[in-house]
């Protein structure tokens, strides 16, 4: 959340503000921490990576003359002998949204300098992410047992496996990296690195709770990508 006033200088809102920010012969993203701007630009590039995966999936699925596997059957779980379609995926979605919510609150409490609350919420986010990765491992092993391979599967078009492992694997990798960083930042917050102004990552600058917002941006992005994967790969 950028501030509307910097050094007593009132910034213009809206598109006029955009024009004057861009043409100010100064830093363009006014009131935005450099780390946050860099994280956004990284996320933009990551958006293109995931878009390429999903577009290639669209191209692969659209051009095969064999029927695509019925995802609501492939990903169903048996509960008491009755198949429930997409049950595990639905639970995974809810877990990830829960962790996204706790992250948003952690950012808020961080800016309010509520150290304990911020730390616990980041820890809760990390646990949510870990649960998600665990369920994904279960899902992968179940599918591998059923004979799904990158080059073929018993349910339909042979491209299914390669797209499934590539897309969910790359997303799961993002979640795993995020979980590692969430645990590191849980430690940093509880240890009071932002109160003692200990220096941050790869920089001489003093640490600040804005780092929690930057971490939050990454985590929300992971959730955002899952929204698209859930819609295009599982529901479509």
């Amino acid at each position, binding site marked *: 959340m950028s501030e509307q006033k910097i050094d007593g200088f009132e910034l213009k809102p809206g598109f006029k503000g955009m024009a004057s920010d861009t043409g100010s012969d100064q830093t363009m993203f006014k009131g935005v921490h450099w780390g946050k701007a860099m994280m956004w630009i990284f996320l933009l590039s990551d958006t293109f990576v995931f878009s390429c995966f999903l577009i290639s999936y669209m*191209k692969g699925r659209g051009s095969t003359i064999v029927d695509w596997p019925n995802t609501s059957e492939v990903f169903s779980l048996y509960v008491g002998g009755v198949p429930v379609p997409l049950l595990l995926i639905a639970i995974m979605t809810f877990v990830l949204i829960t962790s996204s919510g706790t992250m948003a609150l952690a950012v808020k409490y961080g800016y309010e300098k509520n150290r304990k609350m911020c730390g616990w919420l980041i820890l809760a986010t990390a646990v949510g992410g870990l649960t998600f990765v665990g369920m994904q491992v279960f899902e992968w092993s179940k599918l591998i047992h059923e004979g799904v391979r990158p080059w073929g599967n018993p349910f339909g078009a042979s491209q299914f496996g390669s797209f499934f492992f590539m897309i969910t694997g790359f997303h799961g990798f993002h979640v795993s990296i995020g979980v590692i960083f969430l645990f590191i930042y849980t430690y940093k917050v509880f240890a009071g690195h932002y109160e003692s102004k200990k220096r941050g990552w790869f920089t001489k600058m003093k640490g600040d709770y804005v780092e929690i917002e930057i971490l939050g941006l990454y985590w929300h992005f992971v959730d955002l990508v899952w929204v698209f994967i859930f819609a295009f790969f599982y529901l479509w």
Partner: protein
Amino acid sequence: MEETNKMEETTKKEEQTSTQKIGIYLWIWLLLFVLSFFSYMVDWYQFQGMLRWSLILFFMFLKAGLIMAFFMHLFWERYALVNVLLWPMTAIACFIFLMTAEFKYTLFSRFFYFVVGGA
């Protein structure tokens, strides 16, 4: 006098960095749950055809928009940042458009040569 001035200044500064009310996050959170539940219901009731695709896309874009606008704070950011982030997305739309034409052509040639057996 100077002391109070200083005090005023610090409170002002704190007000500037003040965060959004907790209610807005909780509402967005709840909305995301409800929307996810609805998009799961699309599969549960096995809606098919145009109804299915439009519902899936509607819930997807609504969820993505809510996450970006409120959880990622884009709603409160300055336009200089928002526009730098959102305009490149049009390139993705172009790419989708191109690849749609491409897969239709590939599908056509596969049917033509594999199924029909060529001219």
